[in-house]
C-alpha cells in the first residue's frame, strides 16, 4: 500500500511538470491573443516528430533536439499567425475556433502524409532507467523515479521560469503583457500589435514543441496524439486561472494529482470524465481559477 501511494505521488509530481509545459503555451496564446488555439495539440505533435526524425535518422540524443524543435515550431507559429490567424483575429469566437480547428486538421493530415500513421517511439538506451527509492530489501521493489521523467520535469520548470523572467523583465515581454491587457492602449505607447501577436503565438508554439520533444521519449505517438493534450491544456488553464504562470503550475499539479488518484481507483475507466467534471465544477464555483487574476 505504501508503495502504491508513494509511487502514485511520484508519478503525479513528474506528470505535473510535463503537463505544465503543455499548458503554458496554450495559456499565453489564450491570455494575450484571446483565442483558443485548437491547433496547439498539433504543435506538440510536430515537436515530437522533429525529435523522432533527428533521433532515428541522425541519432541525436532526444534532449539535445529540444532547441531544434523549439526553433522549428517558433518559426512555424510565427508564419501561421502572421499569414493566417491575423486575418480573423477580430472575428467572433466561433470563427477563430473553426479556423484553428481547420489548421489542426491540415497539420495532422500533412503529418500523416509525411510520416504515415504508424505509431512511433523514441527509445534511447537510457529510457526506463531510474532511481529506486525506499527499496525493500526482500522484494527489491521500491518507488521508481525514471530519469527521463525527472529530466522532463526539470526542463519544464526551467522553461517556465525563463518564460516568467522574459515576461516580467524584458521589454518584449512587457510589450506582450501590455497588448494582452489593452491592445489599443499598447498601440498608443508604440507597440506594434501584429508582430507582437505573432511573437506570442510563436512562443506558445515553441513551448508546445519542447513539450512534444519530451513526450516523444515517454510514450508512443502518432499524428493524432495532440487531441488529448489540447483538452488537458484547457482544463489546466481553467483550473489554475488564465493569465498567471504560477497558476498554470498549480493547475497542473492539481490535475496530475486527481488524474493519478483516479487512475488507481475503480473509477479508472472514467478518468477523462472525472477530469471534465472537475472543469465544470471549477467553472461554476470559481471561474477565475485558483490563481486567476487580470493579467500576467
Amino acid at each position, binding site marked *: 500500500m505504501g508503495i502504491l501511494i508513494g509511487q502514485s505521488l511520484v508519478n503525479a509530481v513528474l506528470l505535473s511538470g510535463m503537463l505544465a509545459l503543455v499548458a503554458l503555451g496554450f495559456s499565453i496564446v489564450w491570455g494575450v491573443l484571446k483565442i483558443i488555439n485548437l491547433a496547439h495539440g498539433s504543435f506538440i505533435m510536430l515537436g515530437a516528430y522533429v525529435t523522432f526524425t533527428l533521433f532515428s535518422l541522425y541519432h541525436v540524443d532526444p534532449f539535445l533536439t529540444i532547441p531544434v524543435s523549439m526553433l522549428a515550431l517558433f518559426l512555424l507559429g510565427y508564419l501561421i499567425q502572421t499569414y493566417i490567424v491575423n486575418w480573423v483575429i477580430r472575428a467572433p469566437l*466561433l470563427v477563430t475556433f473553426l479556423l484553428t480547428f481547420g489548421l489542426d486538421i491540415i497539420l495532422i493530415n500533412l503529418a500523416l502524409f509525411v510520416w504515415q500513421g504508424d505509431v512511433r517511439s523514441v527509445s534511447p538506451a537510457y529510457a526506463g532507467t531510474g532511481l529506486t527509492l525506499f527499496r525493500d530489501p526482500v522484494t527489491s521493489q521500491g518507488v521508481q523515479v525514471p530519469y527521463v521523467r525527472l529530466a522532463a520535469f526539470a526542463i519544464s520548470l526551467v522553461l517556465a521560469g525563463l518564460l516568467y523572467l522574459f515576461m516580467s523583465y524584458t521589454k518584449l515581454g512587457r510589450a506582450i503583457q501590455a497588448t494582452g491587457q489593452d491592445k489599443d492602449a499598447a498601440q498608443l505607447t508604440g507597440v506594434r500589435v501584429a508582430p507582437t501577436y505573432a511573437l506570442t503565438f510563436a512562443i506558445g508554439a515553441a513551448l508546445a514543441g519542447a513539450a512534444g520533444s519530451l513526450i516523444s521519449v515517454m510514450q508512443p505517438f502518432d499524428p493524432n496524439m495532440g487531441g488529448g493534450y489540447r483538452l488537458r491544456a484547457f482544463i489546466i488553464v481553467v483550473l489554475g486561472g488564465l493569465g498567471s504562470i504560477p497558476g498554470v503550475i498549480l493547475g497542473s499539479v492539481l490535475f496530475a494529482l486527481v488524474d493519478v488518484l483516479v487512475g488507481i481507483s475503480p473509477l479508472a475507466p472514467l478518468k477523462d470524465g472525472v477530469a471534465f467534471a472537475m472543469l465544470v465544477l471549477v467553472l461554476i464555483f470559481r471561474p477565475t481559477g485558483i490563481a486567476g487574476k487580470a493579467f500576467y
Partner: protein
Amino acid sequence: MSNLKPETPNLQSKKPMPVTRWDRLLGTRRNAVYLGACAVVLVVLLILPHMSLSGFVLTSLTTALLLAVRAQAWNFIGGYTGYAAFGNVAFYGLGAYGTAILMTKLHWPFFLAMLVGGLVATVYAVIVGLPVLRMRGQYFAIATLGVAEATRELVSSPQLSRLTAGPTGINLPFFRPAGLSGAAAAEAGSIFFYYVAMGLVVLVVLATWWLTRSKLGYSLVAIREDEDAAKMLGINTTWAKVAAFALSAFFTGLVGGHYAYWRTFILPEEVFNVRYTLEGILSAVLGGPGTILGPVVGGGIYDAVSTFLTFSKPFGIDLGQFHVTILGVFIVMVIVFLPRGVADFFGRRKLSWGMFLENVRQNRV
C-alpha cells in the same frame, strides 16, 4: 394627451420580426416565390427514389439529408442563440444508444424507439445544460466538447456495460421488409431510410420556421445579441438557452436513432466520434448560421464537396489521401473569406469580389 400611451413592443405579434437579412427576405412579398421554389425542390426530392437510381446514389443522398438535419439542429443553439456548442455528438450517440437498447432489449418498433431515443438525448441536454449553459463563449464551447468525451466514456464504461454492452457495441435488428427478398428488399430498405431522413429534414426546417415566429425565437436572438440586456428585459435566459439546447439535442438524437437502425450496429467509437459535430457545425457555418435554410444548404454543399473528393480523380490524381487535408483548407478559406456563410450572398444587393475582401478587412488585426 391621448397619444402618450407608450409604445410597448408587442411580442405576441404574428408578424415575423426581421432578425437577419435573409429572414427579412422571406417575410416580404418574395415569400411566394421562395416558397414556390422550395416546394419544387421538395417534390423533386420526394420522387427521386422512384427514378431508378442506384442504391449507392440513394444512400449518398440519405447521408447528405442526415447531415442537413444535424446542421439545422446545431443551428438552434449555435446559430440562433449564439452559443457555439461543440459537443452535439453526445446527443447523437445517446439517440443511437437509446434507440438500440429499446429495439434490442424491449423489442420496440423503430419509430417509437427513435422518438424515445431523441427524448433521452433531450433530457440529457436539460440535465447537462443547466450547469454548462452558465458559461459563455469559449468556455461553453470547450465544456461541451468535454461533455461529449465524458458521455462516450460513460456509455462505454464497465460500470454501465450491462445496459450498453460497453465498448463492444450493440447490434440492431436487421431491416427486412415483409414479403420481399433480394434486390427488391434492398431497394425497399434504401427507399425507407431515405424517406425517414427526408421526413426529419422537413420536421427540423418546420421547427426552425416556427421558432423564428415564436417568443422563444426572439428571446434566443436577444440572448445572442446581448445577453445581459435580454435579462434586463425580463427574459428568462436560463430556460430559453436550455430550451434551445434541448431542441438541438432532440433532432440530433433522432438522427442518431436513424443512423443506428440504418447501419444495423453501433459502436461507441463510431457514434461518439467528434467528426459528426464538426461536420454539422461546418455545414451550418457554411450555409449561414441563424437562418432557416442556411444549414440545410450548407449540408448539401459540404456533402457534395466531400463526395467529390472521395470519388473523382481530376487530372488523374487520386485525391483520396488528401481528402481531409483539402477539407481543412476549404474550412480555413471559408472562415477567412466567408465567415457569415453562403447566406451572405443573399443579403446583399450587389455581389462583387470586393465582398470577400471586405469580410477579411472587417476581421483582421
